[in-house]
């Protein structure tokens, strides 16, 4: 038997856990008591993360499509086929007819090599990660405003926060270990402010719960900022020393009005006022929101950052901004440049001078124009011009909130899928490359608080499976690239040369302690616990002027309910790892036993008022369209709203006509349907 410290690969918290093995079997996992983030705790997913590796449903041989079925082929045959087809399609249709998407669960090495393959070997910027389908409003807003698109502080620092503001994200269900950090901080005396439409687990423990109508975040933040400015609570010293564009910001803020915002958002004005004062007066206050699966406007992100700047809650321990990455390596794949408009380290592809540095290191000319993003690639095949698509561990059929995605995927001349399982997406592929699972390869991941950590190999993969990164290398070599990486550690060494934030990280030091938090550089070899500690004037933060949004409420007497389409809440229930673990399948998918045809969610009081019981079918009537489905009656959703989970694609299609526009709000009325 052996015990090895590794990193949980489920969500972005990046918990440290031990794997116990006997021979080539994983016996079980348990949390590390000493890991700074999870300190002896892991969630139900962590306790069962190893079940994926031992799942009997794994695919272990490369599969090549022959007509309607697949045929097992040798690895070299599969790689040769892919290389030939990619070359042929590139020569015939040009480099920009190929696209590469990966899952935000791919390792740093996989992500780095996939985008390098696309950019250097193929010659296209058509690269993106799957989460780009839902939301990508944070990276640009954060780069513009604070310069770095990541959590500024460490998760464990929340234990020292005086005030914690959780915006939107249902941490208890989606990042339970982080919810625990927040709750324990609250038990120790921190004040907890929760913003959002849903009354989720953490909202129950909040000191102030600002339950707002959907889409009114920017309005509430603006009103809070007005209170802070009017009461003279802004940190003018910080603003003067370190921020720009304050005047433009303030002039927009002057248009906000507390009572108006209260009416527009449905939040009592006293609550908005108290939250603003509590946050601004705190010595150390943190703001948490999700960048992954929330549909969130650019303005809502900017408004949250403005609040942080206005109160000077940056550059000190226990405060800061946490744009949370929910999948385990969303941070890492973005750092590695799986973005259509940015090279590794967030360098814009259009920046000729800095692109030149990459061209020197990679010894090749790079494409200058930004590529297609995930949404454009998957929906309508980049306006119909894309011919080939490579999906690394990504299963858009089950996880992307897009109608008719199966049809679009079928139209590709070449679809390459790397995955652990035969997913519905893989069923559509021309070539399926099975990949390694948790515990079968040594690679690195970057947590939502910038912690680059190793996941260790503890067992041999079945049937001589190659790690996914090595598969990319092999295809690149067949296409003429002189790539020479013996191990994933070699890939990390190269990452260090092109991404300055990672320059001090290598497998030797990542394997010591508990990884390294970037920036990890030669003058900061131990990494950086929180950003902007240096008090110099070199770092300029930038306020965004956010005009007061128009009131979003279009409900009327005839259509009194607002239909909200959410890609977030039940995300994990569709997850492929969850589907292949006995316990997780049960815990995350029992809702589908209770509501076999799916559900929309309705507030308990609303349900009582119209006489609808839990599980009863209802008809959603909009001005032009209608849909029928079961009601799940719960106190979690706000009165006057109906929540449509993203997997209810029929409802979406009937109500919105299949545009896949999850941000859309639609006024409806409810009619009872005869059972």
């Amino acid at each position, binding site marked *: *038997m052996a015990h090895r410290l590794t990193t949980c690969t489920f969500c972005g918290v990046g918990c440290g856990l031990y794997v116990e093995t006997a021979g080539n079997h994983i016996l079980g996992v348990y949390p*590390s008591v000493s890991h700074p983030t999870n300190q*002896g705790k892991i969630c*139900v997913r962590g306790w069962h993360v190893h079940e994926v590796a031992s799942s009997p449903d794994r695919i272990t041989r490369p599969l090549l499509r022959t007509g309607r079925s697949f045929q097992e082929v040798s690895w070299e045959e599969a790689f040769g086929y892919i290389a030939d087809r990619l070359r042929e399609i590139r020569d015939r249709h040009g480099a920009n007819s190929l696209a590469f998407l990966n899952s935000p669960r791919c390792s740093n090495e996989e992500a780095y090599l996939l985008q390098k393959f696309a950019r250097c070997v193929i010659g296209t910027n058509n690269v993106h990660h799957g989460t780009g389908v839902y939301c990508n409003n944070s990276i640009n807003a954060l780069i513009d405003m604070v310069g770095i698109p990541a959590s500024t502080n460490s998760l464990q620092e929340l234990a020292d926060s005086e005030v914690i503001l959780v915006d939107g994200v249902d941490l208890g269900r989606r990042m339970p270990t982080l919810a625990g950090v927040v709750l324990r901080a609250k038990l120790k005396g921190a004040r907890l402010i929760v913003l959002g439409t849903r009354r989720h687990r953490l909202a129950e423990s909040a000191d102030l719960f600002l339950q707002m109508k959907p889409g009114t975040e920017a309005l509430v933040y603006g009103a809070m900022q007005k209170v802070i400015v009017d009461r003279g609570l802004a940190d003018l010293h910080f603003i003067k020393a370190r921020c720009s564009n304050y005047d433009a910001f303030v002039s927009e803020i002057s248009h906000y009005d507390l009572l108006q915002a209260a009416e527009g958002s449905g939040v009592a004005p006293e609550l908005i006022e108290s939250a603003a004062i509590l946050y601004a007066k705190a010595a150390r206050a943190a703001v948490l929101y999700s960048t992954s699966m929330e549909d969130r406007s650019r303005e809502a992100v900017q408004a949250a950052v403005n609040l942080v700047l206005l109160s000077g809650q940056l550059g000190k321990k226990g405060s800061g901004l946490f744009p949370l990455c929910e999948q385990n390596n969303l941070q890492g794949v973005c750092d590695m440049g799986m973005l259509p408009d940015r090279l590794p380290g967030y360098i814009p592809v259009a920046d000729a001078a800095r692109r030149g540095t990459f061209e020197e290191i990679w010894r090749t000319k790079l494409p200058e124009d930004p590529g297609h993003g995930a949404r454009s690639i998957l929906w309508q095949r980049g306006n119909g011009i894309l011919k080939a698509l490579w999906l690394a561990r990504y299963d858009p059929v089950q996880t992307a909130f897009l109608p008719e995605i199966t049809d679009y995927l079928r139209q590709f001349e070449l679809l390459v899928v790397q995955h652990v399982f035969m997913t519905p997406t893989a069923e559509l592929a021309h070539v399926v490359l099975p990949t390694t699972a948790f515990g079968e390869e040594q690679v690195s991941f970057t947590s939502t608080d910038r912690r680059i950590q190793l996941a260790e190999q503890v067992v041999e993969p079945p049937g001589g499976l190659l790690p996914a990164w090595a598969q990319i290398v092999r295809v690149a070599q067949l296409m003429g690239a002189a790539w020479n990486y013996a191990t994933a550690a070699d890939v990390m060494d190269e990452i260090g040369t092109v991404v300055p934030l990672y320059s001090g990280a290598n497998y030797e030091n990542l394997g010591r302690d508990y990884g390294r938090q970037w920036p990890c550089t030669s003058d900061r070899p131990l990494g950086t616990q929180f950003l902007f500690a240096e008090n110099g004037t070199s770092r300029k933060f930038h306020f965004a002027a956010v005009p007061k949004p128009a009131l979003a409420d279009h409900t009327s007497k005839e259509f009194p309910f607002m239909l909200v389409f959410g890609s977030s809440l039940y995300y994990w229930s569709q997850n492929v790892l969850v589907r292949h673990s006995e316990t997780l399948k049960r815990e995350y998918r029992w809702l589908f036993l209770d509501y076999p045809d799916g559900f929309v969610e309705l507030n308990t009081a609303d349900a009582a008022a119209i006489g609808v019981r839990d599980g009863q079918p209802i008809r959603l009537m909009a001005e032009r369209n209608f849909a029928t489905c079961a009601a799940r009656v719960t106190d979690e959703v706000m009165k006057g709203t109906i929540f449509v989970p993203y997997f209810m694609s029929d409802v979406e299609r009937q109500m919105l006509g299949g545009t896949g526009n999850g941000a859309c709000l639609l006024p409806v009325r409810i009619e009872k349907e005869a059972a």
Partner: protein
Amino acid sequence: VKARMVASSDVLKIVDLLQARGYEVIAPFLGRGRDTYFDTVSPDNRAQIKIHLPNPYYPPKRYVIPHIEPLLQIKRDNGNIRIEAAGEEKKRALFGIRSCDVAGIDHLDRFFLGREFGDVYYQNHRKNLFLVNMVCTDVEQDIGQECFCLCTDTGPAARDHFDLQLMDLGDEFMAVAGSAAGEELFAAPIFKKATLAGVDKRRKILDAVRHQFKTTTSWFSAAVRYVSQGKVSEKTWEEIGLRCFECGGCSYVCPACTCFTISDRKAGPNQVDRVRIWDSCGLGGFTRMAGGFNPRRAVHDRRNRRFFRKLAHYFIQRELSMACVGCGRCAAVCHGDVGMPSVVEMIRRAAAGAEQQ
């Protein structure tokens, strides 16, 4: 009492004695930081065995109820169905198991073997298990922030249910035999005649250690009374439930928790394996019934189940042993700090407050 003295330099030779008798010996090792674990002793790691260290978090109960355990295999072979029992019979010795975990195994014995139908899988593991209990004497290393075995009356020195007990007296160890198999070891020359000075020193060290626990406010018997008499209000349970994020960790790390689920997994085109997996009463899918009805639908209704099971008189009487052994793991594993010590405190405060009114 059958006691002997062992020189400090000889104490690891007990591992060799057990190996010579055909036991796979499991002993505690230091991982990274304060992390520790039980692992199989081999010539490569024998020198790294630690006598004083934080009690391993992943509980040794997995040697009697594994985290995942194959129960049987159903095989299809030329149209015939064959069912074969899985499982291994292995002689194992746990060297360095703490008193709380010894009490845990005793509790599991009573649960799995103590009534009409014995659990054969458990029995197979248990009958071949040799327990070498190490008494917690090093206040810095052995006794954690969350330990409260004083309150559950299970430590720091176990009174029974071990085969051999060792206690560090500083310059030598005192060994106490708790079974015939343990006593049989005393034939080896490393065991010397017990001295009066040794017995005296043992008592003095134990007296001193008892006063150096960090968590001693666990009002156990009061909590047992409040829970058994139904004096814990719904509001208190709700408050406790609100702090549970349903990870299942408290059940997994508990030396006395017995919940499991059974699942049939496809293991190949012609084979299905039936496995038993650790489970937790805190999980919604565990309490949900096949028809969809969940008698414990709200989180706090599930969460309080754990404390009824451990603190209610009915269960204590049924097994003549309490399903909490004071190891403190649940306090360390809990995201919302509703491990046993905190809950006992919450119950006591709320119920005592109500009684005074």
